[in-house]
């Protein structure tokens, strides 16, 4: 519903202000990351890369970041693989009880993270998975699975299985028919599931606070403990690095999207 001229102008001001409220605070870390002093000085007296050196020169930061990357990749692989298997079962083999199974797999999305953390902590103490890499992978896989299953299942439902059956009746093996006919149709969903799973693990703190520790300190956990105990702006450098990566990815995605919507219009 469009407003009158004045209304539209008011709406534009409100809209832009709120979007600025969303975006600008995050960018504050960038000037801070380049200040030579330990607190925010504006205008800054000079530029310095010392906080970036603090990050790259500190073994603990680097190993935390490296752990988070490995963890994210492991979670992306396991949750997408398990999600694919489950999605195949739910679309093609299970009729009765599919509703229940889906509910169970999606439940970690609804249960508050703190409650999941208490439950996972409890079982990990008993089976000895506390502060271990496999323990972190399993915990994050539980959180990522809902997205993997839902994404892949909806892609599988959109696949036309006619050619698949045709390939089978023409003598293709089951595996070959899957690879040649079904896989191309669900590849975007598999990629999306892997990316989502990585990001969920990459940004997860609540479970890690409970089940991670000194030797399994992920980047978010180190940031969390740093924020609680330190005032050095090393975190500004870390946060800025994160912002740079996200900004680059979003810009590329947006430009590609713009090209994709503008090209059909011209022809």
């Amino acid at each position, binding site marked *: *519903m469009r407003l009158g001229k004045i209304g539209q102008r008011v709406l534009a001001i409100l*809209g832009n202000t709120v979007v600025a409220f969303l975006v600008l605070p995050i960018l504050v870390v960038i000037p801070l990351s380049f200040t030579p002093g330990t607190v925010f000085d504006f205008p800054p007296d000079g530029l310095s890369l010392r906080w970036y050196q603090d990050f790259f020169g500190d073994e603990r930061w680097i190993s935390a970041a490296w752990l988070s990357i490995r963890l994210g990749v492991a979670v992306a692989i396991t949750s997408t693989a398990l999600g694919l298997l489950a999605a195949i079962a739910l679309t093609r083999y299970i009729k009765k009880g599919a509703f229940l199974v889906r509910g*169970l797999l999606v439940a970690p999305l609804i249960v508050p993270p703190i409650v999941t953390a208490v*439950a996972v902590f409890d079982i990990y103490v008993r089976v000895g998975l506390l502060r271990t890499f496999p323990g972190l992978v399993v915990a994050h896989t539980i959180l990522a699975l809902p997205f993997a299953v839902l994404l892949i299942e909806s892609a599988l439902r959109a696949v036309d299985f006619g050619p698949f059956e045709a390939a089978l009746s023409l003598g293709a093996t089951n595996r070959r028919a899957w690879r040649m006919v079904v896989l191309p149709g669900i590849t975007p969903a598999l990629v999306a599931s892997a990316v989502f799973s990585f990001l969920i693990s990459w940004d997860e703190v609540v479970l890690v606070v*409970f089940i991670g520790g000194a030797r399994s300190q992920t980047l978010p956990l180190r940031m969390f403990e740093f924020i609680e105990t330190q005032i050095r702006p090393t975190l500004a450098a870390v946060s800025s690095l994160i912002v740079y990566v996200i900004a680059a990815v979003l810009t590329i995605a947006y430009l590609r999207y713009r090209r994709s919507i503008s090209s059909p219009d011209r022809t």
Partner: protein
Amino acid sequence: MSRGGWRRRTRRRPYRDSLVGLALLLPCLVVVLLFFAYPLIGVFVRSVSDPAPGISNYVEIFSSRAFRNILRLTVEVSLLTTVGCLVLGFPVAWYITTLEKRRAQLFLVLSTAPLWVAILARLYAWTVILGRRGLINDSLAAMGLVQEPLDLLFNTRAILIGMIHVMLPFMILVLYSSMSGVDESLVESADSLGARPRQTFVRIYLPLISPGLIAGSLLVLIMSMGFFILPAVLGGGGDITIPIYVQTQIRLFKWGIASAMSMILLIVTLALFALLTKVFDPKSVVVGGSRR
């Protein structure tokens, strides 16, 4: 979509098919049942058995004043966050629906961009802005407006600001998809039949987007109640919400009371979620969004 082929197959070998299905589901089920569902039941059992069997933990929670304060703070902060997100999200979502496609896309990317930035980077930014030697206090002092730095950080208000900042993108997404699904011809026909803009808004537009308003609010409410990291970073010592309390009790190995608190949070969340699925079919978001 032709699924006739495999339907025929399933009819031929239903037993084998459900076996294959189960085998495919097995890895998922093992992980989720063993490391999620089973210990979750364990949390419930602990809540009614530790330290003594019975509902003493729950009685304690609801009868003690300190506990009631924890519950009240959690609900209050979550409700205020929801209202804040509605008030701020509504104009943005509406504004985006009035833009042409390219600019709309840009605004959608900008307003959801914070979601992609690590939560701790966002919270750290707020500590930089609100801290005693932070951006706001520095600027106020430089302008000579304050002598002493204001206490903007480590209190309930800081939690609220952070919560609204973190939740707003979700609200905008839900509201936008609901608003962009509105059939403009309904609005136009109301206009052409002589309705005043306010009438059109209240009688036509608001009812059409009300499922989105309710769904967005419930979504924000549900997520806000479970927030742990945010109040831990931005709140002060007195700002104990349910998740914060649960964590401190686990640290002290007081499993019974922590489990009971977890269960209360879980039950409220599930009740709100049930309400959400009642008023709003998640699929309609997608349909509403793509109709434009």
